[in-house]
């Protein structure tokens, strides 16, 4: 499973990396990411997740071949 992160998340993770193991939904992905960096809890709780350029929620069933984009709160303008 490939992970892409942006903006402030890059202070906690590499911009692109892979994870393996049983990750069925975004809650399980967040839990796995916290094992990589336990300081990322606050920012992860405010993030949206996207697959194939569309937003997903925890009901979306993740696949091991998915590329997941983790999107921090916007700050454009």
């Amino acid at each position, binding site marked *: 499973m490939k992970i892409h992160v942006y903006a402030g998340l890059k202070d906690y993770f590499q911009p692109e990396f892979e994870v393996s193991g049983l990750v069925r939904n975004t809650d399980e992905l967040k839990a796995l990411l916290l094992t990589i960096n336990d300081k990322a809890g606050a920012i992860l709780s405010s993030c949206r997740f996207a697959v194939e350029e*569309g937003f997903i929620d925890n009901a979306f069933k993740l696949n091991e071949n998915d590329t997941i984009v983790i999107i921090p709160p916007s700050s454009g303008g």
Partner: protein
Amino acid sequence: MAAPSHPSGPAAASPGQAPAPEALSSEPLDIVGLLGGAHHPGAGAVVLFSGEVRDNNQGRAVSSLEYEAYAPLATSMIAEILATARQRWSLQTAVAQHRTGRVAVGDTAVVVITASAHRSEAYAANRYIIDRIKHEAPIWKCEHYADGTKEWGNNCNCHTVTGDVNKHIYETGG
């Protein structure tokens, strides 16, 4: 949610109007050119908002801002926001363009132009568009301070009030 939720695609420009500009640009924004393409014979009002880089933030001197975007989704979201505004306010023109990369103090980071028969619709639609871009589009800014430090910041924090990362304060009032 069984499948990813995709914003609708970009709307076509009205007949006789300039093609819609790209939603994101790594080059300085051509405000004059964008305004020139926004006029419409049915529009008695044109409103242009230019979001520009300020030289200070929370008491600290700012040297520049750096914008990053998740381009595929930001582009489709901005297109959906513009299409919604066009329909809701019967706009003749609705365009928006946002910078990516480093933007100097005084330069434009985002421009929104709306044109309608009367000014109230053009003002309201313009405010709607810039608010939604700032709150929802996956675009982020990094403040580069004069002391050499930098910080990602000024994030939308609506979720701390609404309890939902997909729900923003301006949406709770109906």
